[in-house]
């Protein structure tokens, strides 16, 4: 028997909308809330049309109040709903940090599982779209460090829908990071049906023997470009898209670096305290004897994302990644 899966080309952001629509249909407990998500359909249009389709009860605007939004979402999750709360930009999650850290992440442990918080927090992150300050932060490490919340960050439309659905179905809080730079610049095949991408699993997007490249989200196109150029120079890269930032896919990392013995990690966030260092520690713990060169990290500097006239100098570029590849290969 042959089953055909219907799919269509969607932009990254359309895939996210599609994921939300799928779950609004699937589970009557799903509600979407946040600043401007209702009539306006979100400042990026991620929730465009959803209020019209599902009504104001399911998809609604909140006051300009991130702590209130987060606290109320946690309260709704405690009382049987499955909220998807949008934070307009990741840099505006800081006022909600308290609610996330003291309640979303701790309710299960402090009640031995009696009270739980099945909550999805969606937030666009990252630089490169000429936004004002604070709008371009990559603050994932503030969430991966603290127990009780999972963090995912897709780089393709397919993964965006699949991870979003997995996040809604996860019984615990999930921070769903959206590379805003990819919203409209990336398209891909997305099945119409419901499917999930497993949280905690990375993906090898290109096979190679010489160097492991590890990245996620908006850095994937950068890394793939560098890999393509490296290929021309005869260097074969094993490219890993992590997809989940906590818990990291230890196995895929270890397997790859044990093969290549060399590794370049790329992210937008600041170097100190960035996730590259967590990856380093996985490599230290699993693959010490395999490493043939120090690991190279291509990251944002330990400075704020600058005002946008300079942001291109903040962000990792294919050229910087290529230089790092050269460095680990020629060590």
């Amino acid at each position: 028997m042959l089953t055909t899966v219907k799919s269509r080309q969607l932009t990254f952001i359309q895939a996210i909308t599609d994921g939300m629509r799928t779950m609004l249909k699937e589970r009557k407990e799903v509600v979407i809330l946040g600043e401007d998500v209702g009539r306006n359909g979100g400042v990026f249009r991620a929730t465009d049309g959803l209020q019209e389709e599902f009504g104001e009860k399911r998809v609604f605007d909140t006051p300009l109040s991130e702590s209130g939004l987060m606290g109320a979402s946690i309260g709704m999750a405690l009382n049987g709903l499955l909220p998807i709360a949008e934070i307009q930009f990741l840099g505006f999650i800081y006022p909600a940090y308290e609610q996330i850290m003291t309640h979303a992440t701790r309710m299960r442990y402090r009640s031995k599982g009696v009270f739980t918080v099945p909550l999805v927090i969606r937030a666009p992150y990252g630089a490169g779209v000429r936004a004002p300050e604070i709008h371009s932060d990559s603050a994932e490490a503030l969430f991966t460090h603290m127990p009780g919340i999972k963090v995912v960050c897709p780089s393709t439309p397919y993964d965006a829908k699949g991870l979003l659905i997995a996040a809604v179905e996860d019984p615990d809080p999930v921070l769903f990071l959206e590379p805003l730079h990819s919203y409209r610049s990336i398209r891909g095949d997305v099945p119409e049906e419901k499917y999930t991408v497993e949280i905690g699993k990375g993906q090898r997007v290109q096979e190679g023997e010489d160097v492991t490249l590890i990245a996620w989200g908006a850095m994937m196109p950068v890394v793939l470009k560098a890999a393509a150029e490296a290929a021309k120079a005869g260097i074969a890269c094993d490219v890993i898209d992590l997809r989940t930032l906590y818990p990291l896919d230890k196995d895929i990392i270890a397997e790859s670096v044990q093969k290549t013995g060399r590794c370049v990690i790329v992210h937008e966030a600041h170097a100190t305290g960035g996730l590259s260092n967590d990856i380093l520690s996985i490599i230290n713990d699993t693959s010490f004897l395999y490493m043939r060169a120090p690991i190279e990290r291509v990251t944002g500097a330990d400075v704020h994302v600058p005002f946008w006239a300079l942001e291109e100098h903040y962000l990792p570029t294919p050229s910087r990644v290529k230089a790092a590849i050269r460095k680990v290969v020629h060590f």
Partner: protein
Amino acid sequence: MAAKVISTPLLSEHKINVHFPVQQVVNHQGQLVDPVYESAINEELAQTFYRQLVRMRTLDRKAKSLQRQGRLGTYPPFEGQEAAQVGSALALEADDWMFPTYRDHAASITFGKSYGILSSWNGRVEGNLPPAGKKILPPSVPIATQLPLAAGAAMAAKFKGSSEAVIAYFGDGATSEGDFHEGLNFASVYQAPVVFFNQNNGYAISLPIHKQMNSETIVQKAVAYDIPGVRLDGNDIFAVYFQTKKALERARNGGGPTLIEAITWRYGAHTTADDPSKYRDQQESEERREYDPVTRLEHFIKRNGYGDDAWMDSVQIEASEEIEEAVKEMESMPPPDINDMYDFIFAAPTWTIAEHKQQYLKHLQEEE
């Protein structure tokens, strides 16, 4: 019924002086002062109130004594606030939600938690667990953070079309936090069925209320959200009970949230680690016993012939026995389970947690 709201002359050109009179049903001498509630009060109600107040005071004193003996860790006593907590908790329906703080054990127990709650002050997470199906949240430690949660739980109740209402407790100090504001704003915007029950006990650790805020009352903050505000004598269990019931009914009937300010007092320390004489005159604090919630109810009961000294003694004896029993039970709890530390972070442990657990348990074994 008399108008409950009086506007007094303006203080300054651009300042409005709002006045919320203090609601009282029974005064500190045990006299009924608001005849409206006369028909709603009977012997059974008075005795129920009394039994629970005595239990709670006995529990609190026991806890302090256990702490002094080193049988309990640092503990935040609530003596003086029993009427506010018991009266409001008794006003709830079985299906309602409660969001208490660390000081609200009397409310939590009255609404259904076991005395085992005390074990949390021995660092036992088990003290946080309600009886099955009972929607009593673990006490909120970070101040005011429970208020947006309560708003959200109430929004969900409305969403589901259930008849659940929500009560959230908080102190005078909590009103300074942004979460107080954001919680009340959310509840008012969505007209969520929640009662914000403030126990104004005059202090936030060492800070007296007049340094916490420039406003004379807490209740006037209701004006910011255009929601009903009620100021009441929090040591008068009848005022607490009837006004909370009314607010809960309004909430259930779509009337939205209410802010209640219950004026009360903690006689003792903020916690057993605190020395109140550092920041206030404890002699003066003791003088407030004239307005004590338990004594007041005794006066009322005697006045109305609902009970005599012998009955009161029997209530006390029963309470003491019950609590001794509960303490025994608490002290014979099995030791804490190390697995609890790892097994309730997520529904299923991530590999990092599983690894940390395995490594640590192995280390413990090897250590032996």
